[in-house]
């Protein structure tokens, strides 16, 4: 249990980061996990005139893993270019789908490595991915 629910995950699920939508987003994505009804609306904000992310903001409800994952995504994104963030989402997805065989890379994913334990629980991978899929979708929509 403690491998799956590391303290940082429990803490973030109670005190989320980046919670609350704000005007001026470059793009927004709404995602639903149909098996449990968990939902998220996630915004990507860009530094004006650049392709660098200034902030990720989100609102939603769901399990501790999906909520903590959204906070960890919001912590990771600021300062990265769109392309960089896109490749880190891909890295995170690969680790999540690895059934516990690939440890997420702390240099590239920061505190989100705390979600590494989720990849052994196939039923919960979707929970961890929800915010990241929303982020990917928002990046794809944001005007170049």
């Amino acid at each position, binding site marked *: 249990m403690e491998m*799956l629910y590391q303290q940082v995950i429990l803490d973030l699920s109670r005190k989320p980061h980046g919670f609350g939508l704000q005007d001026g987003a470059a793009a927004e994505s709404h995602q639903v996990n149909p098996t449990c009804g968990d939902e998220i609306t996630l915004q990507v904000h860009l530094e004006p005139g650049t392709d660098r992310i200034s902030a990720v903001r989100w609102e939603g409800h769901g*399990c501790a893993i999906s909520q903590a994952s959204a906070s960890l995504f919001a912590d990771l994104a600021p300062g990265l270019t769109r392309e960089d963030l896109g490749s880190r989402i891909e890295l995170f997805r690969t680790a999540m789908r690895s059934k516990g065989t690939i440890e997420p890379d702390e240099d590239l994913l920061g505190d989100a490595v705390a979600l590494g334990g989720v990849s052994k629980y196939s039923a919960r991978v979707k929970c961890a991915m929800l915010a990241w899929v929303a982020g990917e979708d928002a990046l794809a929509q944001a005007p170049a």
Partner: protein
Amino acid sequence: MLTLPRTIAAMSATAPALQAGPLSDPEIQAIRRDFPILASSVNGHPLVYLDSGATSQKPTGVLDTEREFYERRNSAVHRGAHTLAALATEEFEDARGAVARFIGAGDDEVVWTSNATEALNLVAYAMGNATLGRGGEASARFRLGAGDEIVVTEMEHHANLLPWQELAARTGATLRYIPIADDGTLRMDVAAETINSRTRVLAFTHVSNVLGVINPVADLVALGHAVGALVVLDACQSAPHLGLDVAALDVDFAAFSGHKMLGPTGVGVLYGKRELLNALPPFLVGGSMITTVTMETAEYLPAPQRFEAGTQRVAQAIGLAAAIHYLDVVGLARIAEHEASLGAMLVEGLSLIPGIRVLGPGIGQPRVGLASFDVAGVHSHDVGQFLDDRGIAVRVGHHCAQPLHRRFGVTSTTRASAYLYTTRDEVAEFLDGVVAATEFFGVNS
């Protein structure tokens, strides 16, 4: 031939105690020995299976019946004259008879389907076909149009909501619903007005798969029949746990699934009153359900064959008959009594835990052996994951009843559901697990 399940058979031979009152602990232990899966371990703990509301486990008698059929008599039914085909057909029809006796119906009033979902869709689609003019004059009473109303309840499983939503959309009829009161019962005061002269179909569940509440079928049937509506009963959570007497209840149609009552997956039942089934145009069409076919038209067999197109689920049907035999040997009345006591233990135990809200009937109110609950500040998936780590299997999510959950202001709940093989020790272990989960996730911190 159905054989008596081994340990239950031994019990009934040696202990004539299998008669009345709730199941005794030795009886439950004997029952458990008939279910191989209950001896297994999950995550290093003995399995505590509290998800029978989703699907029940199967006794060896059912598993053996299916295997024996495939090993010795497997062949297609109602299609062929060789010896095995005749044996298989006989057994298939005997199984139908067993279901018919179990629910107080005539043999020809029992239609095999894949599950309850297909049974409910069958009625709705057949009515849609009647609306399109299929089935001639006989089917006129099933035609719907603008101004007609279909009434369901706010507590329906999606399987007994969406077929009616779709039928209303296809025919121009209006879908209305009976709301739920705070204690999980139906607002019968509202029902008396919602069900009116425009009501053509009244479809509702006998027992809620989320609330555990037992609906007043007789009162609803009376309201429906008083205005000439067809009454459709979702018996998924009643047939396995309380039994079902369609004749006494006087419902027009009823649906349930074999897999929730110790039977195999892939087989369900639609009951319909004889004259209604024979007036209803078919839903699925194809082989084995016709008398004469030309390139232009076809004539259909009477019920039940008119609704059984294609190669049938023979092994599953006879497996379901074996399951019903098992339930009969133990006795539905005793099973219901055992489960009512577990339901009371669940609601009492959960209500004592801070931060927990049980949906549905409160302590002392009638409920079957299940309870769904919300843990303040903790998502059901996290509760379920925590319990799973201890080998405790529960259901999490919306249990295919989103409008019901919305009504109670939650998106999901955790549900524990019992059956005849569930022990009080298991319920106690589950309650301990829930307490530990609330501590782990810091509900009170």
